[in-house]
């Protein structure tokens, strides 16, 4: 996987981290150009043409086509660096071989972005565009095309020992929480946050930084406070940017007040040196000390528009494809550059749009080949937007487009106008609903089209959607409209906005093959650095060869505007005196290494320590000479504090060689005791029976089994209408109706069954007319029987007095019977049984049964 080379007598160690296969750099075979010939150089109507002697090698030819033809114009480098001009004369027009030789002195094809030619431009040397970085990036693209044509498939990372720096001091949290209590806890957290962020709150929610115990609150608040930059404290950001339960109508003012309180707390603190007991590495900063791991290896020989969004300011996002005319995008409306030095645009309803005339480049280049690719790194803000919400569109209005990459909920949509679609490019291709391919996180999405393979959508390197086979081979791009405009983040009309972040966009006039999509996905997005944390001083003298240094190397990148990503750490030995003949160093003894934590600005980061559980022993047997020893395969996110130019990092270890740190026991907050509910807020002492209890009680009282078919049928109908909770305050009319229906069903079953009813109402004549049946004796049989099951009595005659009395029940039931038999001698047939059913249901469905 890796191989190394080391220039002699230089304090440089070369580590090839990616495959570095260099071929075709000599005067070998005839030039083989795998890509489209670049378009003729057009600048204000001028085309430069080389008329000197023929190139003598294939590589000179590649230089001519990919670089010289773009640079040698009068408007770029030709005015100065031509023959007879200023050295190096890489733009000379009389002898391409000589120009090539000069160019080689300032070009590094293994790391094009690090070429002297590029860094000079980046520093502001005679850039022909508005921004020096745009010229540098454009030139990088040309050099990468040369490198790619030459077969340089990877890049070489040169690891150089950084300056030895000791980690600085920091504002550390004091042990005593008094100041915290005075400035932050009492006036703000207790006052405004205790209803939720306290274990005794009405809706307890971690972290409990508003706990009444100031010690517990202090501990919980530490990860939410930034003493170095109070306004970046999480709890301030939540107020200001997310309007999280502000206590006034003005969240900014609340955030300012809280930030001022944190500043007042921090203002009384003296910077403290790093705890001597800690086992630490030397310190590094990303900007000054980070070694750029350039994103080589991208496959983009046919790129015709490319946006890396590096400028980070202004109203224009520049096309650095190097393919003229530049298709720059003007930012309109609510669209911002990403913070924290991260490359990208955040769309909040606005858009970035290119002029129509310049956009015609897309029409020309794509209709020429009949195929194309849209490649982007995107992070949708949510998975609820639809329309489709326009991520990238080449269109003329809401209903007219050449292509669009959009979002509908969890799906990416790809609309491509062909002679087989309508003018709005429908029917569209979408990723399948069930796959939920689109997630609101950073994703690499690629849409490709060519007539043979149709449309395809790749997400994170994997094919996510493609046209049906029977649709292939039909529909050309002949009906594309060259008056449309390239627009990102919304439609040209500003409708159908897409909310999210765009970190990279490239448009190619070839359909990228699946393996190329995968390769570009693997390269990633944004800038990456290597940080070499020197740990030599913590090792015993005989642990590594004398004169060598030991490092923990991390790959570090700004992950987004708010965090750094630390990844792929490995232990590595560097020998500054190594020669090409000497063997790379290896450890001489076993080196125990455990508990790696990342420190930032003088203290261990309070969260995100994904390497805290690393535990390995580096030894001669597992350390690969020249390659090192990988320590972990996971990544860690560490919050940005002061920006990548200012934040200072270091590592701490629980164990490194013979040095160790005895980590103190973690603070364990006291178990919070919830407050007593106020008298008024307390639940009632009594409750009601729930559905199954009602059913079982009625069965018990009537003697009708719950399996009785009619009863069971009714129960199934009303089961979910019956009370679910015992809380008497939740009793509703709907519950009441359900209980009534069920008690009627039970009483019906009881009265209809001769055996059961004689058990319940022994001696009552169900067949007699009401006037006879409900004579005092018969009436008493009904009333007393019902009262007996509702008001329990012991054999000794004691009556349960927690509910209605038998006398009261009898009075109510009597009155009901009177109502029911008011028809006197003219009652319809069946009135007696109906009356018993009604009285039974009324009694058993009453509170006497229900309340417990």
């Amino acid at each position, binding site marked *: 996987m890796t191989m190394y080379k080391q220039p002699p007598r230089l304090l440089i160690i070369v580590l090839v981290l990616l495959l570095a296969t260099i071929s075709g750099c000599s005067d070998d075979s005839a030039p083989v150009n795998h890509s489209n010939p670049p378009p003729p150089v057009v600048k204000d109507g001028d085309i430069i043409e080389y008329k000197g002697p023929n190139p003598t090698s294939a590589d000179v030819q590649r230089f001519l086509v990919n670089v010289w033809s773009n640079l040698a114009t009068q408007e770029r480098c030709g005015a100065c660096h031509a023959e007879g001009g200023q050295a190096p004369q890489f733009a000379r027009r009389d002898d391409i071989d000589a120009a090539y030789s000069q160019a080689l002195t300032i070009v590094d094809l293994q790391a094009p972005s690090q070429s002297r030619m590029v860094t000079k431009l980046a520093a502001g040397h005679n850039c022909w565009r508005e921004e020096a970085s745009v010229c540098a990036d454009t030139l990088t693209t040309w050099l990468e095309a040369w490198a790619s044509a030459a077969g340089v498939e990877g890049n070489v990372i040169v690891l150089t020992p950084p300056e030895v720096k000791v980690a600085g001091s920091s504002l550390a949290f004091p042990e005593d929480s008094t100041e915290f209590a005075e400035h932050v806890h009492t006036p703000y957290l207790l006052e405004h946050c205790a209803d939720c962020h306290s274990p005794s709150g009405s809706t307890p929610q971690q972290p409990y930084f508003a706990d009444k115990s100031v010690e517990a609150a202090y501990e919980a608040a530490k990860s*939410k406070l930034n003493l170095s930059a109070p306004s970046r404290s*999480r709890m301030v950001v939540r107020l200001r940017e997310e309007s999280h339960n502000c206590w006034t109508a003005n969240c900014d003012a609340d955030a300012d007040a809280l930030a001022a309180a944190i500043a007042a707390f921090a203002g009384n603190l003296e910077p403290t040196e790093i705890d001597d007991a800690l086992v630490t590495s030397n310190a590094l900063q990303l900007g000054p000390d980070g070694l750029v791991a350039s994103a080589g290896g991208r496959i983009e020989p046919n790129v015709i528009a490319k946006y890396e969004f590096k400028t980070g300011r202004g109203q224009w996002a520049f096309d650095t494809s190097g393919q003229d005319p530049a298709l720059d995008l003007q930012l309109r409306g609510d669209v911002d550059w990403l913070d924290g030095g991260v490359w990208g645009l955040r769309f909040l309803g606005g858009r970035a749009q290119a002029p129509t005339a310049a956009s015609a480049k897309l029409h020309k280049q794509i209709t020429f080949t009949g195929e194309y690719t849209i490649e982007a790194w995107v*992070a*949708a803000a949510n998975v609820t937007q639809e329309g489709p919400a326009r991520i990238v569109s080449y269109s003329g209005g809401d209903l007219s487009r050449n292509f669009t990459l959009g979002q509908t909920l969890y799906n990416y949509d790809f609309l491509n106008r062909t002679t087989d679609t309508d003018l709005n490019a429908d029917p569209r291709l979408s990723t399948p609903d069930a796959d939920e391919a689109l997630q609101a*996180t*950073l*994703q690499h999405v690629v849409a490709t089209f060519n007539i043979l393979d149709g449309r395809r959508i790749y997400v*994170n*390197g*994997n094919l996510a959607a493609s046209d049906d086979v029977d649709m292939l081979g039909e529909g050309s791009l002949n009906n594309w409209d060259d008056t449309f405009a390239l627009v990102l983040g919304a439609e040209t009309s500003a409708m159908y906005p897409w909310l*999210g972040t765009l970190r990279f966009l490239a448009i190619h006039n070839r359909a990228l093959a699946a393996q190329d999509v995968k390769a570009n996905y693997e390269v990633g997005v944004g800038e990456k650095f290597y940080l070499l944390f020197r740990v030599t001083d913590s090792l015993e003298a005989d642990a590594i060869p004398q004169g060598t240094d030991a490092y923990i190397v991390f790959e570090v990148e700004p*992950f987004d*505007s*708010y*965090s750094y990503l630390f*990844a*792929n750490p490995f232990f590595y030995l560097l020998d500054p005196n190594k020669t090409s003949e000497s063997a790379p160093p290896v450890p001489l003894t076993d080196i125990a290494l455990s508990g790696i934590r990342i420190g930032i600005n003088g203290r261990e980061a*309070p*969260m*995100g320590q*994904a*390497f805290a*559980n690393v535990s390995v022993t580096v030894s001669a047997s597992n350390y690969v000479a020249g390659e090192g020893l990988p320590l972990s395969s*996971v*990544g*860690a996110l560490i919050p940005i504090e002061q920006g990548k130019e200012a934040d200072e990092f270091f590592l701490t270890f629980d164990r490194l060689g013979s040095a160790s740190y005895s980590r103190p026991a973690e603070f*364990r907050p006291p178990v919070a005791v*919830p407050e007593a509910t106020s008298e008024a*807020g307390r*639940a009632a*002492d*009594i409750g009601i029976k729930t559905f*199954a*209890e009602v059913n*079982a*009680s009625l069965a018990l009282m009537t003697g009708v*089994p719950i399996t009785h078919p009619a009863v069971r049928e009714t129960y199934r109908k009303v*089961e979910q209408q019956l009370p679910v909770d015992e809380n008497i305050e939740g009793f509703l*009319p709907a519950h*009441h109706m359900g209980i*009534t229906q069920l008690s009627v069903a039970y009483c019906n079953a009881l009265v209809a069954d001769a055996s059961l009813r004689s058990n319940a109402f022994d001696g009552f004549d169900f067949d007699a007319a009401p006037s006879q049946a409900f004579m005092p004796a018969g009436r008493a049989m009904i009333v007393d029987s019902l009262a*007996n099951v509702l008001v*329990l009595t*012991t*054999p000794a005659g*004691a009556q*349960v*007095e*927690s509910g*209605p009395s038998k006398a009261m029940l009898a009075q109510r039931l009597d009155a009901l019977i009177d*109502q*029911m038999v008011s028809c006197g001698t003219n009652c*319809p047939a069946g009135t007696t049984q109906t009356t018993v059913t*009604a009285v039974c249901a*009324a009694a058993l*469905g*009453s*509170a006497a049964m229900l*309340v*417990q």
Partner: protein
Amino acid sequence: MFKQFRGRGARLREAITKVALIGLLGVPCSMAHAGPLEQAKRLHERLTGVPPDANGDALAQMQQYIANDNARAAAYLAMDNDHFYDVTLVNWAAPWTNRDGNVFVDFNDYIATVVGMVRDEADFRGVLFDDVIYVGRAVSPAYNNSDNAHYEAIAERALPLQTTLERRVQSQITGLPSEATAGVLTTRAASQAFFKAGTNRAQLRFTLMNHLCRDLEQLHDVTRPPDRIRQDVSRSPGGDSRAFLNGCMGCHNGMDPLAQAFAYYNYNYDPDNDPDGLNGFLEYNQPDELDPVTGTRVQEKYLINSTTFKLGFVTPDDKWDNYWRAGANANLGWDLTLPSGGHGAKSMARELAYSDAFASCQATKAFKAMCFREPQTSDDRTHITAMVSNFQTANYSAKSLFADAAVYCMGGDN
């Protein structure tokens, strides 16, 4: 609302309603001065959901026990009633067996196992990890790994659970290896609810909710190392890593290393023709059964959405670790005599069951079931502590919890 009724039917319903409402309003709302008889009735109703049989002698016996200052004996007497099992316990456990906390679910093996363990006064901690399951004695159809018909038959026939359920060795009934059984967690009902699709994190989350009385929000702690959070968790939701660092991470850092214990389990069902998984079954990858996608015993679902964050944790096995033993969640009272890590669901579930939080949660749930409210005063909380103590003394018999809670809330000057 009564206008829809006509003629005699309307009069009948109106009359019923009047009596019902009158009765409701006429009931005394306090038991502050209730005597043993009233306490006995309430004790019985709270425990069983039904009043004592008007023709039986339970009421008088309970009254006597209470009068003799032995209310716990009265409670135990009430717990001999079938309704304690058929009504109270069934509805106590039913919401734990599904994601919605719905009590209206079919009777199933999870509920049956809870009911049976209470009945048998088993060490209730084993409900999470024992090789145990309760089935109906001589009930046809017999237990089947691929449907719930056995338990539905018990419910349909309204068989009394007190005498119908019998304790069996789960591995012998289901064919799961004994070491892979984990009490109710590996029942079919729990598998259908929490191992179906998804990532198996649900099994842990709902176990925490139902048996430690804590949802993940209450366990949120961003200071734990996030090294075991899988690749499917976005580290930058919506392009903002703060949402991960301050939100997602605080739960996943502790949850993922615990849920790794379930790495070999999956609920196998036909999503096209049986989307609810009514005929699905629990599958478990034994040592010689490798998942074709992962190439290990780990189920494919543990590696889904692996490109969301490539540098996330890739699950290699079912090794679990309890990161919550340190930090704020040390307050859950873990049993420090147990190892803080291990392999598989059984040992992980034991870690949960042996926590103070588990015992306290069972006590709180029983309290809520008997008192119809959460603990709300310091007296209530002191009583919960006493219930936990008695629970331990009673070798973790859940009946002890019900007896203590019901007596506490039987009214009067208990």
